[in-house]
Structure formats: C-alpha cells, structure tokens
C-alpha cells in the first residue's frame, strides 16, 4: 500500500527536481532577489533599534529581531507553494484532461513534484542560514544557543506549514479561477498573507486583541508558529497547542480542496479538441 504509493509518486518528485534543474538560472536569480530583500529588512530593523533608546523593542532584542528576520525568511521560502496554482488555468484551457487520464491523485502529483523542487531549495538555503544564524548568535552571546528539541519541533512545524500552504494554494487557485475579475493578483494575496502570517512583522508587535485573533487564523500557522518555536519563544504547552492547530488546518484545507476538486471536475466542461 505505502510502497505502491511511493512507487507511483516518487517519479513526480524526480521530475520536479529535473524541472528545477532545467530552469536553474531563473531559480538562482530569484533566490538572489529574495536574499537581497531579506537584507533590506535587516538594515531597516537595525535602524529602528539604533534609533530607539531602550534595549528592547516590544519584548524583542535586536538580536532576537535579526534571528527572526532570517528564520522567518527561510521559513517563508521553504514553505512557499505555488505549484498547484496552475490548476485553475489548466481547467480553463482544458489541459486538465491530461491530468484526468492518469491514474494519480491530482494533489499528490503536485505535492511530490514540488517536493522534488524543494529538495534543491533545502540544499541551497537551509544549512547555510541555520549555520549562519547560529554562528551569529554564538559570537553575540558567547555561548551556543542551539536547542535540539526546539530545532526538531521547528523542522516538523515547518513541514506542517508547507502542507497548509500547499492546500491553501490549491483552494486559492480554484478561487482565483472562478473569481478572476474580483480577486486581483497573486501579488496582493502574497502581501496580505505575509502580513497576517507574521512574516512581515512579528505578530507580537500587534495589538493584543488582533494578535489573539490572528493566532487562530490559519495564517499564523504558516510562518509565525515555526519561527517562534525555533527562537525558543514558546513553552512546550504552547508548542504542542500551535502544532495541533497546524494539523487542524492541514486537514481542513485538504478536505475543502478535495470537495472543490470533486465538484469542479463534475461540472467543468473540458474545452477544446
């Protein structure tokens, strides 16, 4: 059962990796752009901290903030998902029929293909950033700050964040397809999601009521939860609670995406031919 599942979908992961290799120049330039915007954030926050009198800003030291920026960048980058976004387009132009004639689940094909992509992103980003951040913390604090327990929970939470993102984007892909004229571009969505998920500024900086509210929305599960776990800002109780919330959102989005898919393929009229 499990074996035949992997036999079926592993090739998609391999295909994803090869696809990535085919566009490696794109990938590198995109990555350089992302890293540059990350450093811009770094300098902005540095300026904020040097211009304030106290040592901390809303409970964050400058050191915390810098770790936050880089880890949240990495989390955002590694949990990003847009592979399934083409689905709406495929339904519109009828090429979804080529998906329907294969004995595979539509979401698993996308998922594994993206995992194949992600293998490369992990290789290029994960180790350097974690190492960089830890070395930075070591020199600043004079002692090793790395916590294996937190790190493992962070890693699991990051995978959860990816899965939420993955199914969220499938749903968004359908929505954008149906509401093409109303919804605007992916750029606006990304800005809103980044803000609500705490990727732009830590949720801790927001008014308490809003912060509590956002914690229960799915967005905080995308970025804020894993980052807080990494930084050791959460107690074990809080870690378990927020990860349970992540799992809840994975199932919720998974269920919704399946429902939409099922009703969509019954109703779509595959065009062309």
């Amino acid at each position, binding site marked *: 059962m499990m074996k*035949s599942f992997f*036999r*079926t979908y*592993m*090739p*998609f992961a*391999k*295909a994803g990796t*090869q*696809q990535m290799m*085919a*566009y490696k120049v794109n990938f590198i330039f995109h990555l350089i752009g992302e890293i540059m915007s990350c450093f811009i954030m770094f300098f902005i926050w540095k300026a904020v901290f040097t211009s304030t009198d106290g040592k901390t800003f809303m409970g964050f030291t400058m050191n915390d903030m810098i770790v936050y920026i880089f880890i949240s960048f990495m989390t955002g980058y590694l949990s990003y998902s847009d592979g399934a976004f083409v689905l709406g387009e495929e339904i519109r132009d*009828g*090429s979804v*029929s*080529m998906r*329907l*004639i*294969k*004995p*595979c*689940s539509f979401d698993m094909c996308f998922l594994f293909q993206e995992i194949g992509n992600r293998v490369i992103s992990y290789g290029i980003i994960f180790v350097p950033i974690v190492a960089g951040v830890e070395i930075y913390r070591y020199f600043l604090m004079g002692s090793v700050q790395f916590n294996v327990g937190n790190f493992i929970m962070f890693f699991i939470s990051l995978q959860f964040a990816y899965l939420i993102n993955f199914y969220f984007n499938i749903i968004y892909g359908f929505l954008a397809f149906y509401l093409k*004229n109303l919804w605007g571009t992916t750029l606006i969505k990304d800005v809103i999601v980044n803000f609500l998920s705490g990727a732009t500024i830590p949720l801790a900086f927001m008014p308490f009521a809003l912060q509590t509210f956002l914690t229960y929305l799915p967005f905080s599960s995308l970025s804020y939860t894993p980052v807080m776990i990494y930084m050791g800002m959460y107690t074990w109780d809080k870690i378990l609670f927020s990860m349970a919330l992540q799992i809840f959102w994975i199932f919720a989005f998974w269920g919704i995406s399946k429902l939409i898919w099922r009703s969509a393929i*019954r109703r779509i*009229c*595959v065009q*062309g*031919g």
Partner: protein
Amino acid sequence: MIQVENLRKEFKKAIKEPGIKGSVKSLFKPKTEIVTAVDDISFNVSKGEILGFIGPNGAGKSTVIKMLTGILTPTSGKCCINGKIPYENRKKYVKEIGVVFGQRTQLWWDLALRETYAVLKEIYEVPDKQYRERMEFLNEVLDLQSFITSPVRTLSLGQRMRADIAASMLHNPKVLFLDEPTIGLDVVVKDNIRKAIQKINAEEGTTVILTTHDLSDIELLCDRIVMIDKGNLVYDGQINNLKHKYGQMRELCFEMKNSDDLLSLDYKGHFTLDEDDLSIESDGVSATIRFNSDRASVQEVLKYTLAKIDVRDINVKDADIEEIIRRIYKEGV
C-alpha cells in the same frame, strides 16, 4: 468490451451581451443556453476491434471520447468499458486504457522523453521486463531513438505525436482511445503510426477507438465505422456495406475548352436523375460530375458529354470511401 447506451451530453454556454453593461449583467444574472453536443448515442464495440469513429467538425466525437475516458460526466445515459464506469472510479479505470488527444500532449514539457517514459512506467506499474520489451517494440515501429533524450518541449509536432502514441501504449492498455492521432503529420509518420496501431491490435488484442478526418486511416485500419453528425448517430456498420450501398456512384471529371459549354449539359433532364443521384461542381475550367451509375451508365454519360462539348481532358473515377463520406456529410444517409 464497450457498451454505450443513450449517451447524452449538454453544455451550458454563457451568452454574453456586448458592452460593459452586458458584462455587468452577466455577472449577476448570467444568461445561459444549452447546447446538446451528444444526443442519445448507443453503440457497442467488441474486444479486439478497431472502430473508426467519424463525423464532420463539431459532430461531437471528441465529446464522446471525453466521456468514454472519464474526463467528462454524461448528462444522461451510460457507458461501460470493460465492466467499469469511467467517471465513477476514475483512477482504477484509467489504468486500463490509453488515450491520445492529437491536439494535446500528455508528456511532461520539461522532461526528456526518456524520463517521461520512466515516470509513466512507475505510475502504471509496468514490470521491468515488459517495459523493456514494449520500449523496444515502440522504438522499432515509431523510431523514437533519435529524439528520446530531448526535452519534450523541443520536439516537432510529428515527433511529439509519435512520442504521445508510444506513451499511450506503454502500459499495454486494454482499450486505446485515439482522437485524431494523425493530425498534421507527414505521410511517412502517418504510416508508422498506423503500423503501430495495427501491430498492437494484432499482437495484444487491444480494442481501439479512432477518430480522424483522414479517411485513409479508416480504410487501412478499420472494418467498422460509427458515424455521428450534430450529436446524432447516422451510421453504424461495416465499411464494405457502405461501399455497396453507395458504391454505384461514379465521378466524371473533365476540363472544358469553353467554360460556357457547361450550360449546354443537362444530365438531369437527359437521364432523368434525382437530386440524390447527381451533383455537379465546376470552377469554370474543369467540372466534376458525380452520378449514380445504376441510373445512367458510365458509357452513356461519357458519350453524352463528349457529344455535347469539347473537352481537353477527361477521366472517370470509382467512388472511394472519401467520396461516400463526403456525400453522407452533405446529405445525410
């Protein structure tokens, strides 16, 4: 093997009124119109048969194929292939079939062709030994070797089509659905593809449903055809019967020295022919007369024509299948 009963498919088509006002209106209260693409079609196909599925543009052929392959759900009616209902258990069902849509590709755009086949091998769980034999066979018939390492996006139409055909046959499907597999191909490639179809049918007993506008595909591959028009079934039977039924039609082509001459010819009156028995086409220089040789013998028609006008060139042809189909498309059975 394949049972199709009263299959029907309606599409809802949005009607958009022109202008901004129309767009706003259609946003809140979309006006729709129902188009019946397939209207109550029934036929059966037995195992190992190659069925030619033909009809003029917009007849509903592709729509039927999409329902048979589980891509579309019928509005009403039933189809059952190999004991399975396509749109009900899609994943299981599609494992047993192979599909080619001439206008689309099922191959991965960015992968080398060889990798694509490796992916398909796993998806369809083809055993190593069978995979090797099958690849060898397909290689031989379709000559894939020269481009098997190229990414699919760099293939020419003919190469891509051969690759697609090979992909549909890789897992030894029980039924093969081919929707215009020879569209836009040169004669040699067409020949290779026909050979591949013939071979897999003969060796594996694969049932094949084939739509095409190239009637030589049909003549070379099929014994039986199902013809539809405007969503309705118009003919289901052996090609030979069709030939017998319409085979008495002959075609007389000639080039005139003087284009006004045509006016002096009155085949209809002279031979007392009906509408069905005669058609005349002319571009001023040459003319094509199709007539029923039971009603007017070839000899008489020739004699009459030559007596009336001066011709530069003249010849008589047997009705081939193309001619017959043309007649049916134009006039109905």
